[in-house]
């Protein structure tokens, strides 16, 4: 008997099928990968399972019994638990309180001792060592927070655990810890569904994989009988390559060239992630990768570089395009030839309830190419947007749909196309492929390399070490708000870089 089965499940939004006649089975006591590009219907399917969406057709069976799941509480009662991509933890509260929230023992008041005993028992059973029950969640690392989420599901006696892109925020070491833990859970009989777009991961750690494409189920494979290429082809519908193998033009003396952007002794104390005496130089025709575990100052660095006016406490030197840029605002930097692909595409990069043209104007709304006497001439913008849609294959290819209607990858393509529109000399690019479908990753990487090969300077921030290794000419690793080490391309080695990311020596 399967732990979980989807039988002809369909979910429509208007005339659009988010899921169309999905059918697959998940065997008990296995790790089951669910892969697909963004918008392929993975989250819709899991939300249906978790009772967030109601389904129109088909049946979901849990342990062989058809069920109708109307809300998450019902899902929990059926033993289904989910770790969302964004953790659902209350920051200032303790780990213990976060875990028992919603299932507090004791009718009058909360019996914390009882809960604690139960938790110790659980962590022993599943080999999830954890000692910080009474620390505020805020003080934990991302990996620890994830472990709290998993413990919470175990505490709720979940039998089927859904993990949505669990490795997106972890260091290589933390990733390997996570999979060890998942394996123990599996051995204790739990069923785990792993939503991911990282094929290597899926291949290494699952027992079976189901591939979705455009809301439909392409097929389920036993992991041992499939290959990366086969899965990728199933996902995208055509053969794809994963590592950037395109041309890397070699420029004479690129390393000695004059820096177009230079930071010296930059310290910022009043930011959430402070910086301490950071120095860096960005030269023409290079991609400088910025690596580091999230929270070690990269965010502050990017925000400072793109908008120094926001940091009053900044101390040090920032030169760009031949001028001092301490205290400059984004529009001034833009005029001087800088363009930005921000970290958080949804919050920082897009106006979700505006159409693509309005989004294309963001940051360009004062560009003299489009604006005269304070009035924007949208008839001049439209062909640019149409060109971007064509060049980057943005789908659906319509200028006047809301940005929220695009999938993550298409949104990112729009943000990158916009950044390139003004023909900048320096590009600050953060997480270009976060949450982006495999097909689009390829195109984005190509675009970045093309800019580099045409002599542009690119500062690339990414949490995907593979991506940085593929694209960068040099790499700076951040730890605790400072540059911990610099790697030249020939020195790139994931384990060495990972060690520095975790605070070790090069």
């Amino acid at each position, binding site marked *: 008997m399967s732990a979980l089965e989807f039988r002809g499940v369909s979910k429509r939004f208007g005339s659009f099928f988010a899921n169309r006649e999905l059918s697959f089975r998940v065997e008990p006591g296995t790790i089951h990968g669910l892969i697909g590009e963004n918008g392929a219907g993975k989250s819709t399917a899991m939300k249906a399972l978790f009772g967030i969406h109601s389904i129109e057709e088909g049946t979901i069976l849990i342990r062989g019994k058809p069920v109708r799941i109307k809300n998450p509480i019902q899902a929990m009662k059926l033993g289904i638990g989910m770790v969302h991509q964004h953790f659902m933890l209350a920051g200032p509260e303790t780990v213990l309180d976060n875990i028992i929230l919603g299932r507090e023992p004791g009718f009058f008041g909360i019996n914390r001792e009882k809960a604690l005993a139960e938790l110790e028992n659980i962590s022993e059973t599943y080999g999830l060592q954890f000692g910080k029950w009474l620390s505020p969640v805020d003080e934990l690392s991302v990996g620890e927070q994830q472990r709290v989420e998993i413990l919470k599901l175990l505490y709720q006696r979940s039998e089927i655990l859904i993990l949505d892109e669990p490795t997106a925020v972890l260091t290589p070491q933390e990733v390997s810890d996570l999979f060890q833990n998942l394996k123990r859970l599996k051995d204790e009989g739990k069923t785990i569904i792993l939503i991911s777009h990282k094929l290597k991961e899926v291949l290494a750690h699952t027992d079976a994989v189901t591939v979705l494409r455009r809301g439909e189920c392409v097929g389920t494979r036993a992991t041992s009988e499939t290959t990366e290429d086969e899965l990728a082809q199933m996902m995208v519908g055509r053969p794809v390559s994963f590592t950037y193998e395109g041309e890397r033009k070699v420029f004479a003396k690129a390393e000695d060239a004059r820096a177009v952007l230079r930071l010296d002794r930059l310290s910022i104390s009043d930011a959430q992630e402070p910086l301490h005496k950071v120095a860096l130089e960005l030269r023409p025709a290079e991609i400088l990768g910025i690596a580091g575990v999230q929270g070690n100052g990269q965010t502050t660095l990017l925000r400072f570089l793109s908008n120094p006016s926001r940091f009053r406490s900044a101390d040090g030197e920032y030169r760009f395009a031949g001028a001092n840029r301490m205290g400059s605002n984004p529009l001034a*930097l*833009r005029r001087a030839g800088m363009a930005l692909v921000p970290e958080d595409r949804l*919050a*920082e990069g897009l106006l979700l309830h505006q159409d693509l043209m309005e989004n294309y104007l963001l940051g360009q709304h004062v560009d003299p190419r489009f604006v005269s006497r304070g*009035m*924007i001439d949208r008839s001049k913008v439209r062909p640019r947007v149409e060109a971007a849609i064509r060049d980057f294959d943005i789908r659906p290819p319509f200028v006047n749909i809301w940005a929220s209607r695009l999938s993550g990858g298409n949104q990112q393509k729009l943000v990158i196309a916009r950044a390139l529109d003004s023909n900048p000399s320096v590009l600050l690019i953060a997480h270009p492929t976060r949450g982006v479908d495999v097909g689009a990753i390829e195109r984005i990487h190509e675009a970045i390399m093309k800019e580099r090969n045409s002599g542009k300077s690119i500062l690339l921030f990414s949490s995907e070490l593979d991506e940085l290794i593929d694209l960068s000419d040099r790499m700076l690793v951040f730890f605790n708000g400072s540059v911990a080490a610099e790697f030249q391309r020939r020195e790139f080695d994931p384990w060495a870089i990972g060690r520095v990311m975790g605070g070790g020596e090069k």
Partner: protein
Amino acid sequence: MKKENKPTGYASFRSFLRAVAGATLGLSAGLLICRLVGESPIKVLQVLYQSSFGSGYDFGMTLFYTAPLILTGLAVAIPLKGGLFNIGAEGQLTVGALAAAWAGVLGAGISSPALAVLFATFFAFLAGGLWGLLPGFLKARQGSHEVITTIMLNFIAAGVTAYFTLYTIKDPVSAQAETISIPETFHLKPFAVFNGAPMGWLIFFLILLAVGIHYVLWRSSWGYSLKALGESEVAAETYGISRGSSWMSSMFLAGGVAGLVGLVEVLGNSHRFKIGFSADYGFVGIAVALVARGNILGVLPSAFLFGILQKGSASLDLETDKITRDLSYLIQGLIILGVSAEGLWGWLWKLVRRKNA
């Protein structure tokens, strides 16, 4: 996929239809209540129709109520584009109206009516604008929440204008709390066809003003910045849109527009500033903007609807035995609910679709 190809114009038209449907639903609920208290809904509709279109005078009075609501509706809708909730239109219009009256006192020597009106318009706009700028400035500088500051400034405006009315430019002959009346040159002439209702060319000016503001907000970089800011503060800041200047400028414009209520009341109607002249225009303006769903042009029909209801509330009291002022306010409230109950609409929509499916 077909659905996603619908142009933006279609979406706003659909939103308009929804608003109309919402207003109808609210009105129907109101009529149902009238029925429950024993008044024929048909009669209520007749009274409303007669009171707003029954004669030149009635129509003129309806426009007279509509005019300030256009202005206050705009005063709420403009900052709303940038994510600010302006509760202070009442204060801004009070200050603007006093300024218009004061302009009449100061400009007694002006002989050209056009110049006089322009002079008063400038004063009213500037005074209201500064009154609006203040919370915009506090928000930009100190992060003070605009809802709190605009509410407080409503009280302060009432106090300040009352002071000037009673002690500085008080009409010494009158026993009422009102200023000296403004000279004839400042008067806006009503249309004769309105048969005594104090409304003339001004209404066309106000419609033009709304259209103009709509155009500027849609076409200009400034309007774009404001819209982007209202949509996502973080995105706007990331791309170099200054929150402070957008907030301050939009609040200045909003306050100035609210201040132009002074033209309607002082230049057009009572020819002087009277304490408490406003029929809560500033607050009804919030409802006007809500029903218009923040759309600048939508403010025009929305203000007209509220004008009809305001005019009608007195007529309902007069023409029926059971319906009092309060009941007609209830109907207004139901209409606002009908239009703004987004969730309700989603639910009804689902219900209809399920039936069709």
